[in-house]
């Protein structure tokens, strides 16, 4: 299951400080959209507003036919944080089951999920016994265990080293093919965004706003050779031009 997301006139103001100028964005059901930009550009704020973890100053978010708050209450959302949101005293399997118990939705069968995520031999291990890459897989498994329609990901692979990041990105793209979701993916990594996403929403800071939406019109999942594809090169070149012409100079 996957739901379309409609972001209409969403802005966020903290006192006098405008953190995010009004944003309009239509995201099709099953699409993979990356939010990219430097720190303080409002990309995480927008993600948290869609997640109904923060309230917008103006505008509405619709997920399918529901508001963001209703979608959250109906457990239609899944959240993947940069730092794994797992309970230190629970094994991987117990943590996945915990999501289902709290959500009150059976979703995927825990052992199938862990097996598909390459975690079968580690199902009984607690977080302290897992490597960073494995822990992030557990984190994602726990986030989608209740089979949400929308997956909201806040720099999920940023804490990993470059090789692990690429490995996990490729794995996740393939995994998504068998469990389609609408994905919002916050990152500050241009190649990662262009490799994974259908669209790159490029943000600039001070105040946070959307500069441009770049399409990457190629079917997913994409292999490593997509890095030589003209569509990848065009998208990353455009993103670099936007980001380095703007954000870093300021």
């Amino acid at each position, binding site marked *: 299951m996957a739901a379309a997301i409609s972001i209409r006139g969403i802005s966020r103001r903290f006192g006098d400080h405008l953190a995010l100028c009004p944003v309009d964005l239509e995201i099709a059901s099953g699409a993979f959209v990356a939010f990219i930009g430097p720190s303080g550009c409002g990309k995480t704020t927008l993600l948290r507003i869609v*997640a*109904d*973890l923060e309230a917008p100053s103006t505008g509405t978010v619709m997920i399918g036919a529901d508001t963001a708050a209703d979608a*959250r*209450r*109906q*457990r239609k*959302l*899944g*959240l993947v*944080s*940069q*730092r*794994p*949101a*797992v*309970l*230190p*005293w*629970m*094994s991987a*399997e*117990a943590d996945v089951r*915990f*999501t289902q118990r*709290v*959500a009150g939705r059976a979703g995927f069968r825990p052992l199938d999920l862990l097996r598909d995520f390459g975690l079968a031999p580690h199902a*009984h*291990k*607690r977080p*302290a*016994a897992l490597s960073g890459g494995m822990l992030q897989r557990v984190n994602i498994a*726990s*986030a989608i265990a*209740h089979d949400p329609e929308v997956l*909201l990901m806040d720099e999920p692979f940023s804490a990993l080293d470059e090789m692990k990041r690429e490995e996990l990105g490729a794995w996740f793209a393939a995994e998504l093919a068998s469990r389609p979701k609408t994905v919002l993916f916050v990152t500050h990594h241009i190649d990662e965004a262009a490799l994974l996403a259908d669209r790159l929403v490029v943000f600039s800071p001070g105040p946070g706003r959307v500069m441009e939406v770049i399409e990457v019109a190629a079917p997913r999942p994409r292999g490593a050779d997509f890095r030589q594809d003209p569509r990848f090169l065009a998208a990353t070149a455009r993103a670099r031009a936007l980001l380095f012409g703007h954000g870093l100079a300021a």
Partner: protein
Amino acid sequence: MSGETLTGLVVRPAPRLRLAPVLRVLAPIASILALWYLAIWFSGLPAFVIPRPERVVATLIEDRSFITVHLIATLEAAGLGLTFANLAGIGLAVLFDVLPWSRPALLPAAITLRNMPYVALVTVLMLAFGDTLGSKVTVVALAGFFPVLVNTMEGLRAADPVMLDRMRILNASWARTFWSVRLPYAFPHILSAQEIAASGAIIVAISAEWMISSTGLGYIINRAMQTYRGDQVYAVALLATFLSFLIYTLVHQIGRRLDWRARGSDRV
């Protein structure tokens, strides 16, 4: 150690390792005894002020039935007091969490109670309730609830924010988040408060008994002082010190077993 049978050339650190735990017990006892005897010889004080260690141990054995009765009274006051200290400390911390406005209303009173000298508290309780178990338990509870309160408050703030986001995205109820996430995160903090509160409970119970009571180890000290039985004072002091140490160690060990932070990859 199996290497020993193969060749005499194998380095054998085993005998030294086996000696270490014995030394760790014997060394403090030896140093305390040495200081004790030195104090007797150099101070020249009479035996009822500073009795010899063997006399104190003999008193502990001779008066064991008398001491046991009062030991039980002290343990009862300390145990009940600690229980109420925990009920009040944890209860207040949870109340502050559920009803944020109750914190500015009640926390200043809690801090005032904590800073009030126990001597004054004991005196007031004595005037109000007399020499009763209730008075002693109240003093112990009042002296012990504050560390529990402060640690529980800190513990309830210790939950990982990303975990709280996860609970919110799953639309978990306040109670579910509290029982499944926040309380377990607070648990190690509450346990470490027990190390302070439990050994403190014994000391406060004995002090209260010393002042107002006709039962308990504190009473024995008081009576022994008036009858020039220095040996009894030392016997009770030794017992109380051992007791405090024992409770601290016990709580510490239980805490280590229950603390999720200490464990790695155990099964569910």
